[in-house]
């Protein structure tokens, strides 16, 4: 019923606006509108906006969530600006993002192109790549812990069989983050492959045929037809993977807990440590706001870049 009414109102509204007058929504259409978006709005308000507001309040306090809080103004942010551990965590996160984002997007593209061809057992390969993505990061992490164990892991056993030197993996300060990149690629490349596969199958065969008729070779078709068509998906996956990279926590928590020698402490892991191990919820909230700001700036940049290059990703 409601839908019938609202379409009617919509038609009415369109008609009036076409006549050049500002359409005044009736009470009924307003209520109908709110009835539709009300539940979702409440969920967003309750689960996103409210906690975000509370976190901001917390970030202005010295608060361990147990004893009475003290308002400290912006001093948490000032401390943050001079905290070497925070900069180290930011650097580790940046390193991870630089390794993870391009590899997962490029790797996802290549795998998707490979899997988009009519090959035997295609469904089997697709399943293989997608299954790790469905597994929870916690399970992936625990599994990886055993595979990459310095002494007893399968990875070092394999190296031994190949007569290659043994590695420290998760216990080596220089390798630990790389190993985490590899584990997360294994766990999440399925996502990129899936989005690219969908996009590839969306490309109209007509354009490809037209290009072929015009005498383009396979590479030229790929370069001038396929790639531009994949633009929006690329912007989208890059933003998505970047946000995922900045929020890296679960894998670190289940594999290294920030070790060895804090070389894998990421921003979110540092936040967790501050809030729930050192009882500094106020300081941790300030870190959360810094992470929010970084994510926001990067996302806005990507959206702006997409707009500028006429790639509509969002």
């Amino acid at each position, binding site marked *: 019923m409601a839908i019938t009414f609202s379409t009617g109102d919509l038609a009415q509204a369109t008609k009036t606006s076409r006549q050049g007058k500002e359409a005044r929504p009736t009470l009924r259409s307003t209520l109908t509108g709110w009835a539709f978006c009300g539940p979702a709005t409440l969920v967003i308000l309750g689960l996103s*906006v409210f906690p975000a507001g509370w976190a901001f309040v917390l970030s202005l306090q010295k608060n361990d969530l147990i004893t009475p809080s003290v*308002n400290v103004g912006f001093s948490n942010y000032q401390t943050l600006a001079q905290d070497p551990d925070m900069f180290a965590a930011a650097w580790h996160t940046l390193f991870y993002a630089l390794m993870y984002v391009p590899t997962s997007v490029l790797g996802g593209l290549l795998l998707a192109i490979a899997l988009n061809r009519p090959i035997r057992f295609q469904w089997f390969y697709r399943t293989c790549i997608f299954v790790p993505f469905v597994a929870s990061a916690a399970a992936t992490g625990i599994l990886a812990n055993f595979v990459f164990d310095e002494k007893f892991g399968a990875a070092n056993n394999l190296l031994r069989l190949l007569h290659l030197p043994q590695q420290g993996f998760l216990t080596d300060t220089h390798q630990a983050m790389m190993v985490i990149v590899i584990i997360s690629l294994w766990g999440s490349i399925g996502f990129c492959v899936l989005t690219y596969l969908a996009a590839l199958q969306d490309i109209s065969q007509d354009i490809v045929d037209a290009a072929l008729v015009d005498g383009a070779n396979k590479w030229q078709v790929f370069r001038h037809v396929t790639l531009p068509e994949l633009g929006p998906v690329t912007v989208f996956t890059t933003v998505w993977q970047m946000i995922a990279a900045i929020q890296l926590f679960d894998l670190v928590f289940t594999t290294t807990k920030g070790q060895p020698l804090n070389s894998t402490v990421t921003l979110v892991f540092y936040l967790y440590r501050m809030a729930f191990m050192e009882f500094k919820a106020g300081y941790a909230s300030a870190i959360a706001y810094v992470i929010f700001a970084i994510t926001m700036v990067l996302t806005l940049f990507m959206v702006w870049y997409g707009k500028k290059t006429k790639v509509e990703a969002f």
Partner: protein
Amino acid sequence: MTSGRTSRLTRLLATVAGAALALTACGGTTGSTSAPTKVGPLDPKTKVEITWWHGQSAEAAAILAKLAREYEKDHPNVTINDSAGASSTDELLQKMQAGLASNTYPDVSYAFGSWAGKLAQSGRTLDIADLVKKDGSGWTEFPEAARLTAEYKGKVMGFPAVVDNLGLLYNKDLFDKAGVAYPNADWTWDDFRAAAKEINNPAEKISGTAYPVAPDEGATWRLWPQVWQNGGAILDAKGQPAFDQDPGVQALTFWQQMARDDTSVYLDQTGQKFEQMFASGSIGMIMDGPWLLYTVKEAKLNYGTAILPGTNGDHQTISGPDLWVLFDHKDAQRAAAAYDFIHWLTAPEQDVRWNVAYGNLPLRKSAETSPEFATFRTDFPGGDVFFTNLDNAKQARPTVPGYQSLSLNVAKAINEVLVGGADPKTALHDAATASIPDLKDQ
């Protein structure tokens, strides 16, 4: 950007700012400063409901639930809502933090001893000092370390829940294979080091011993017994860090030499794998507690237990007493029910049916003669060593709010020294300096 969009954005920002302001108004009121509710006798006529987070899973939870039902049967006016409270005991603290922040905390919760200071500082725990210090309450029969842990500034926040301590668990097969004599009550740390070196066999992936180096209390509390044996202390009489003095440096240097010179120590940066690896037979001996007996027994490991090695005949260890913390809801009847129930639960008759039956040590020495303890002895070989080892737990970790932070700083120092090869003296000194603000902050 169109003007319509701008105004929508402005409105959104205004809403967020408004919400933030509303929150500021209520943000400052958390916590209570008034005196705790006086715990009186339980009125058998008034109905009362209490929430109990026991922090246990599976088997242990079933035993405790059964006891709760039994208590309810004897006290028809009391309803106990028992649950684990969190998916693991470690996560209980986060749940309590969230609960205290939102006023939905339980009446009774299990708590690790190292959290006690912080919880007491919340001002929302009951004070049962008057009740337990009365003659005949049985309070003095609890181990001293456990009693001290429940005390904060003359107030008592709850009862001991589980007592344990650190000793040695060793793999008899690996000792035999290396031709090393088993640890005994006269062992020194030099004997320990020599044995670890002898058993260590990288080619066969056998480690002499292990040390958890994850930056948490698991690393820290394993250092304290040696610090005490060397004549040191965690805090001095003024409550300032003392662990960075010579006794502490000696203890950490000992482990540094074992880990980096002998390389006979498996450094477990997850803090969780080494116990399983010991159970699976790839580590010669570990400093651990009675909680592992069940696991090694299930793994059918040919193991033995011993008290910690000593320094000049001093074999003192550390006890990690866990607590039943009682929380104040400004309701005399709830307070009375919570106290009465936990008092009942920790009484000798119930304790043997829960702790001893489950494989924990009994809370009181007097349980030694009970038939349940005789079963414990046969069910968990080596468990009696940990029971007598309770006498070697002569000192307790300080129950101060800053301990949790101190513990993390010390763990970080241990990590830097054992994994990163830092200088023990400098690392401990830095940890002490970093701990001062949080110790002062009370």
